[in-house]
């Protein structure tokens, strides 16, 4: 019951944040110079003033901003994110077509980065001061300082161009017309590089965090208690230290969700991954407001959901949370 209350509270809060984001994004994007009509005009060779006015009217751009906002919110509640000026299709379907690719990329990157990061970090903490620790800490420090896009380029150079192990771009090999299991393998083959590149940075983050957190926890009183009980060191690490040390990692994973999704803009651009991140950048260049608004909203919702999930996971890991709340 407590947990249900907790989740309900988080959902309401999340919904409010999403609403606030919807409103703010609307205004921010509307403040941008260059309305979609002038972009269309720029690309279509020739266009007269009447025609442009007609288009503005059609898109509702002639209405006062507040009216546009109201209409936008109303539509939003009906699940209508508007129409893409550029593609002439419903924004929701434009985004939904791209969303699976982004989810595949981000979730897989998140999973490998958390798992490998925690494993590496706890290894470094347990073998503190050994060459394991030095190696892991140095690598983590290095990846932590490396720009995603650069390492992406270098990965393409090395693994695609020089070694030819992985494809340099895209999510599928359309010319092969694979189906079934071959299709899945093909996607995985394409996934390896972008996932690793996106995951590396966060892997470094989690490794550092886990290491620091474990060292901190290992100095806590209850660990001393566990030692005084004469429990084996490995057992203490697993049962007492690691579990407590994971609490900040979980919190951080929730916070990182937003960054991870932001990182897809760079990674998807470098690897030509057909996801939302690339769509966001393309839409921005094209001033396709409604798509951009939609992406903002959807990525924010993703972050909110990720935060709720981490909060809920937290309640399972930490029995105190419901009471403290």
């Amino acid at each position, binding site marked *: 019951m407590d947990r249900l209350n907790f989740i309900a509270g988080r959902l309401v809060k999340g919904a409010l944040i999403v609403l606030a984001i919807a409103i703010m994004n609307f205004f921010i994007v509307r403040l941008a110079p260059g309305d979609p009509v002038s972009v269309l005009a720029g690309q279509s060779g020739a266009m007269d003033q009447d025609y442009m006015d007609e288009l503005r009217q059609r898109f509702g751009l002639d209405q006062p901003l507040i009216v546009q906002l109201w209409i936008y919110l109303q539509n939003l509640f009906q699940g209508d994110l508007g129409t893409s000026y550029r593609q002439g299709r419903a924004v929701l379907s434009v985004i939904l077509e791209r969303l699976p690719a982004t989810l595949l990329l981000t979730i897989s990157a998140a999973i490998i980065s958390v798992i490998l990061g925690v494993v590496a970090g706890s290894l470094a903490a347990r073998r503190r001061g050994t060459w394991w620790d030095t190696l892991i800490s140095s690598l983590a420090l290095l990846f932590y300082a490396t720009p995603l896009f650069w390492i992406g380029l270098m990965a393409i150079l090395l693994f695609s161009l020089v070694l030819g192990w992985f494809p340099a771009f*895209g999510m599928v090999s359309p010319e092969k017309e694979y189906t079934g299991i071959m299709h899945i393998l093909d996607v995985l083959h394409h996934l390896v590089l972008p996932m690793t590149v996106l995951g590396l940075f966060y892997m470094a983050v989690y490794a550092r965090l886990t290491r620091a957190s474990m060292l901190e926890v290992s100095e806590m009183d209850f660990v001393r208690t566990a030692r005084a009980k004469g429990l084996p060191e490995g057992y203490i690490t697993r049962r007492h230290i690691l579990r407590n040390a994971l609490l900040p990692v979980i919190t951080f994973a929730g916070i990182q969700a937003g960054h991870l999704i932001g990182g897809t803009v760079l990674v998807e651009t470098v690897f030509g991954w057909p996801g939302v991140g690339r769509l966001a950048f393309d839409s921005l260049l094209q001033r396709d407001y409604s798509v951009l608004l939609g992406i903002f909203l959807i990525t924010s919702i993703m972050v909110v959901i990720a935060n709720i999930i981490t909060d809920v996971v937290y309640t399972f890991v930490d029995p105190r949370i419901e009471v403290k709340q």
Partner: protein
Amino acid sequence: MSLVTRLQQLALVAAIGSMSIPAFADEPVRGGTLRMIAQPEPPTLMLGLNQQGPTQFVAGKIYEGLLRYDQELQPMPGLARDWSVSDDGLEYTFHLQEGVLWHDGEPFTSADVVFTMEEFLSEVHPRARGVLAHVEEIEAPDEHTVIFRLKAPFAAFIQSFEVSSAPMIPAHLYQGTDFRDNPANETPIGTGPFKLERWEQGSYIRLTRNEDYWKEGKPYLDGILFNIVPDAASRAVAFETGRVDVLRGGDIEYFDVARLEQMPDVEVTTEGWEFLSPTIWMQFNLRNEPLDDPRFRQAIWHAVNRDFIVDSIWSGYGKVAKGPVNSASPFFDDSLPDVEYDPERAIELLDEMGLEPNRRGVRATIRFLALPYTETYIRMGEYIRQQLQQVGIELDVTQTDVGGWAQTLGQWDYDMTINLLFQYGDPALGIQRAYVSSNLVKGSPSANVSGLDDPAIDELLTRAATESDPEERFRLYSEFQHEIVDNAYFGYLIEAHFPTVYRNNVRNLVNSAIGLNDNMAEVWIER
């Protein structure tokens, strides 16, 4: 190595050699998928609603126009079997092909043409609207005949039926609907040799052969695959690794072309851009000081080494532009003076104007709106800035995205920019709009944004557009070109010769003035 195997090898070599004898191989064969790159991803494939480059490229295989144009820009049959123009130049009669079916099986008739021109394009197609303004009425005496009556003679009219200028739209799907919200937009229905099979957003577009295509035995290809690869380096890789067969101009960096050309069995052509004939030019805002002074504009012109731009930035895929009309156009006047790269002359001109260098050596600062299309244009902007700095003109660069660029230009909020102008087959269609004072409207980047307001030029262009005698037209346009260049109203940089890189087993790739944008019914792959 035994003698036998050596002999076998020799025989093999001989066999291969004989196979590549053109006469042997030029017999078209059916089958195969042509793999290309659509870049950037087209927003839609409904060509009637969108005529951006990638849309033309992909949808040009789905839709067709009444006419096609050869590389001398002469009309060829398209959906119109033949055509005639009345002597007074006011009546155009088109006879349509028979037995043409839309991709959904409905027959294509003159009613479709009338609907397309009268209702559809005149509402949604910005360029066609301008052309159709010359039309008095459209008539369809029978299912396969369409007659256009013009208000006044308009020589360029016959150049206006290319597929992107006037794609034929199925009346049975669009008549009486809201064109932009029509669900059929998602599944384009044309008469072309290829149908849309699958569009995986962000990944690829696959077209498949139209088995009911009206031209017997065509197309040769089973299908066309357009990969969507947003990154130029990756596009080069895709070609190198054999994932695509063809690269269009702009797909890759120009200096990469030479490298790819070195690969075996790869060829490069710059043909197929005759209809568009892009000219890259510096647009000045003539309203603003000091750009309102022709000496200043001439100084800019002299300060920029256009040979360097052609050679280094475009890797030779272009040539120095002499004036507003592209040298590929029959109206190009070769007698235009050559403006030399002469920084000293530029400095003289600036001195003459009384623009003295300040402590940092700057004589004047102007706002430069960089064109953000591709790396090449950005680099060109960087180069020009550097060149102008050496004569004391400082460029304050605004780098924005395409949207911001279009907006700023449309609002005349700039001093200088680089732009790309397509000729669209005839100066009256492609060039006129940017020069005439009647098009001095705010808000559209493709209008006359520079503020050029010269009655002489207005007069010349208007007369040339309605004149039907080609020689007289040439004379008028020639005068126009001289007038523009003499006043240095604009700075013409280069004519782009976009290279198409392809494997030489792809045959008959370019066979009209719109090159790769054409329907590719005749393209085949040698095996």
